[in-house]
């Protein structure tokens, strides 16, 4: 029990990631699949951010001269995750653009329906 409570932030991230992962595997609707992928990526974002957090830490701003030294959270994971957010948004955009094309070509965005259609054509 202690290990759950001590690391509750990581458990939360794992939970988010696994919800996303489940969606990717279980959903046949392509848009839902892509949304699940985004949830999975969000789990990773939160995971990174929480690794940089220190108890009682403030933002990494410059401390005024003469003031007591401040404890601050590690800013690097935040910076990294800004990049990862951009990557995630781009992935989303590309995925949705392709799904729009799929809808135009097949008239459906359900993976199973598409498989059945292709199967009937003898692929």
């Amino acid at each position, binding site marked *: 029990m202690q290990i759950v409570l001590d690391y509750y932030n990581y458990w939360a991230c794992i939970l988010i990631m696994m919800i996303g992962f489940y969606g990717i595997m279980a959903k046949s609707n392509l848009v839902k699949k892509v949304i699940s992928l985004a949830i999975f990526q969000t789990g990773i974002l939160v995971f*990174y951010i929480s690794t940089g957090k220190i108890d009682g830490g403030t933002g990494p701003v410059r401390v005024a001269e003469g003031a007591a030294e401040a404890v601050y959270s590690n800013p690097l994971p935040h910076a*990294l995750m800004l*990049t990862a957010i951009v990557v995630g948004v*781009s*992935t989303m955009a590309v995925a949705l653009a*392709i799904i729009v094309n799929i809808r135009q070509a097949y008239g459906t965005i359900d993976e199973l329906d598409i498989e059945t259609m*292709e199967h009937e054509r003898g692929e």
Partner: protein
Amino acid sequence: MELIRHNLPALIVVTPLVMGLLTSIIGRRGLGWWMAMGTTAAGLAMSVQLLVDVLSQGDRTLEYLMGNWPVPFGIGYSVDPLNATVLLIVSLLSAVITLYARKSVASEVPAGKLNFFYALWLFCITGLLGITITGDAFNLYVLLEISSLSTYTLVALGKDRNRRALTSAVNYLVLGSIGACFYLVGVAYLYMATGSLNIADIAERLQPIYASWGTDEPVYQKTVITGFAFMAVGLSLKLALFPLHGWLPNAYTYAPSSVSALLASTATKVGAYAFIRVIFTLVGVGFAFGRLHTDVALMVCSGAAILVGSWLAIRQTNVKKLLAYSSIAQIGYIALGFALANRDGITASVIHLFNHALTKGGMFLALGIVMYRVGGTRLSDLRGLGRKLPITMGAFTAGGLGLIGVPLTSGFISKWYLVSACLERGRYELAGVVLVGSVLALVYVWRVVETIYFGKREDEVTVREAPASMLVPTLILVGASIYFGVDSSFTTHIAGEAADFLLKVKP
């Protein structure tokens, strides 16, 4: 000149990035191809120069600091014999395939989208070169996504010929993103343990952590193991190592011909390189293979890849898909080489990176010509083409011999080193797997060759030999793959340098 030479490691990545942006804006009509061609040719010149430079260094490494920020605070690019070789592979293949692409792409992609096609083409090459040259674990992730995102779109552009390109692209996108995300999680774990993102710096900071594991107070043991596990799975997805190869066959089959050739000859090779880099430089072979025995898992996966990939290749009726399954088997050979972790094994792995890129690239280009002239790549489309497209089909057959590993082709050299590496480690069963793989390759290549030369064509259509702009690049690649089979001194020399470099840094 000195300024350019000093900044080569940055320029080799930045040039295609900037040119890609320009191409998307002004590269309409024919101009896009010219810009891509110029950029990839310049990239080839730069990577040759880098290889020469790095081999002339005493310690065989070149360090480059982005914006002169010292590592580990800034991003450092580091060149050594291994990634200089992979850079050469990527830029050589991308230049030759770009030379080929002009007519092939114009026939498969709508004219209004050509500027975007070549922009994505250059972004993909940017990412691949960047993954290879970067010395920063997070930077590697970003570049991995740059190349992957452009690849998904390039695959999807095959939609006008076959709409399955779209579903293949989405499938590849989902799996590829999961792979990249797993790698990213792995980086997070290693960052938690070491507080660094620079690959060389992480490797150094891991040493005291490893040293503490034998004692009463092991630090970060689970963190590092979990991190490596995530990275290994993520990169295996990217390099399509069996059983994580599911995205590959359809993506290769339905992409435009030139894109298939580019992907088959560079993308998975770069994935393999990244995996080698993580195992040998980042976490160290003593940890990955000595402590965790990842090598056993890799040997099982690559052995299965060789057998299953070749077996499935035999059963395909679409020749493009056949080559895709054959690629899965060939990736098995590459992974088997570095899993053996001795000098011959790594040499075999690096030689095969090079040889397979040439051979498979050449074969996909030959198939692209069939697509261009006949309009399909099913076995029935190739029937009796031996007489109508003698040069193209000759090139295809010569490439096929290379896949089997017939003596005097480059495939023989790689397999020779691989088998001797297996024997040196006393893994006779793996040597057997390699030989069985070659026999299976003989079967699937023979099926195609038989159709090409002995199949009767019912529709007596007139098929002319391909235009020179497509034929010459095909012949360059196939010719090179035969040349390096006859005179292998260049490939064995640079692969040997790479193997020596990797084994020297063993912790």
